């Protein structure tokens, strides 16, 4: 298996006049849980569909598990080794839960019966109930079972916890962590940043059709800081621009500086403004996300 399970170079996709992806350079390391973040309509689902051959790229190239994404035969091989949960969690409404599992199982030679039984029990799925009679949460759980039990090398999940109650949510997150511990790569798109922070090893932020941030969570935690400067009187205008500074906010007697690197060096540089106190505060993923997806 290559180092990068998913790799795209300058991937492009246009829908009519709308350019959904404008040169996507995506890299997902093998064995990681990688959070894929972006605003609504940013192209996350389109990216996942491109990776699985549901949508054809207009330019660039991509590989999943070493197979090219734009070759129909290779795409079948990719899907044989990949578990996918779409945002809609759409399944065949006329089948029962049992029939759905029986239908899906033979497609995947590596199907794991032990995992199937485990998640049947854990998710408490009623075998004889028709899918159209399932609640949204139950459908989501069934979709996850069908993805997790495939014995896949890669899981591509689009909002997998959408519609789940907190207990089920936690079960799913633990299932993803367990899968990753077995060597499965998990590529998950989610708006629930707290969950991504909880389980992910790395994040990729998509904005304006491109990846604007690609880093491990450890790197983000280490590099991103908010420098809080407090002044005796009104805060001076901090107009200096230093490498690593992302955003400066003036708030009465305080100046707050978001930095993406060199936090201590920047804090030292800012002492020229003679603050009475200087603090380096950790920054959460939400703030990093919001900063990176600001409209131009």
């Amino acid at each position, binding site marked *: 298996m290559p180092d990068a399970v998913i790799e795209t170079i300058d991937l492009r996709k246009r*829908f009519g006049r709308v350019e959904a992806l404008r040169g996507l350079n995506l890299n997902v390391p093998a064995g990681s849980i990688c959070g894929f973040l972006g605003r609504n309509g940013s192209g996350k689902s389109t990216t996942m*569909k491109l990776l*699985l*051959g*549901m*949508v*054809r790229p207009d330019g660039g190239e991509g590989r999943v598990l070493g197979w090219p994404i734009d070759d*129909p*035969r290779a795409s*079948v*091989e990719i*899907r*044989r080794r*990949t578990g*996918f949960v*779409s945002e*809609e969690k*759409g*399944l*065949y*409404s*006329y*089948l029962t839960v049992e*029939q759905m599992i*029986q*239908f*899906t199982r*033979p*497609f*995947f030679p590596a199907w794991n019966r032990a995992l199937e039984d485990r998640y049947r029990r854990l998710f408490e799925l009623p075998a004889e109930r028709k899918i159209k009679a399932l609640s949204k949460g139950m459908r989501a759980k069934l*979709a996850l079972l*069908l993805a997790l039990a495939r014995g896949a090398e890669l899981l591509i999940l689009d909002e997998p916890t959408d519609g789940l109650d907190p207990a089920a949510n936690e079960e799913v997150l633990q299932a993803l962590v367990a899968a990753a511990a077995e060597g499965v790569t998990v590529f998950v798109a989610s708006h629930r940043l707290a969950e991504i922070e909880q389980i992910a090893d790395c994040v990729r932020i998509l904005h304006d059709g491109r990846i604007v941030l690609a880093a491990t969570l450890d790197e983000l935690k280490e590099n991103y800081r908010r420098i809080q400067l407090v002044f005796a009187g009104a805060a001076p205008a901090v107009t200096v621009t230093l490498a690593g500074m992302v955003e400066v906010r003036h708030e009465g007697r305080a100046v707050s500086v978001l930095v993406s690197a060199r936090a201590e060096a920047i804090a030292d540089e800012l002492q020229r403004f003679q603050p009475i106190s200087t603090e380096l505060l950790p920054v959460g993923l939400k703030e990093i996300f919001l900063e990176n997806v600001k409209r131009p």
Partner: protein
Amino acid sequence: MLWYKNWLETRGRLLAIWLPVFLGFALAIALAIRSAAWLVPAPGAPHGGALVAGPGDRAAELANWWAFWFGGTLPFLLAALGLILAPGGLVSESALGSVSFSLSLPASRRRQFSVRAALLLLELLATALWTTLLAAGLGELLGHPAPWSVALVQALLTALGVAVLLSLGFLLAALFNDWAKPLALGLGLFLGGSLLVNLMASFTEVGQRLGRFGIAALRATYEFLFNDSFFIAGHFPWRHALACVALTLILLELAIRVTERRDY
């Protein structure tokens, strides 16, 4: 498992057609057993005939019974079946939200489409054969020796004609990514065209010629697709059969290619 899934998807609709047809035949057979004259179409009546009592010329009765069956009833039944069974597959799943699941399976679009089309064609053929068997049985009970093997071959030929229409439906649905729009468009064109031609025919010589041409074209298409000459004349219509098979395959291949190129 694709066969299994498509069977589960269509079996309800299939049985919804089969059951009343079977019951209709059962009732007709029961009535025929009770009164042989009751269901004999009027002698000399063209395709279809009226349900009147009284036997007439036996050769004419036999011809009219099978003209009723092959000339209109069976084609109509199979066309209705095709219309009811056809909606589904990736086109419908696209609207219902399950297409992403189907396309995430390690089965090419060609394979998924082909299995569905093949199953529908088999269901069409099975319907043609068993209903024709019952029709032959009913004919026997009416005292008209039925040419069983000939009837079955004719049923196959009728099914081939409907297969062409079904394949055209598949292609249009693939092009529109919708089942309702092609049907609505087809009906609209047919009704609008008929209205226009009829209006023109009332006022202009050109309109009258168009009208006659249109009717002739429709009749020719109908007779090409639902060619019952084998039953009547006994000569197997090789050209017709091969043409239907070729048309069906070409239309299906075009539909598959459209499906393969579509973004979902």
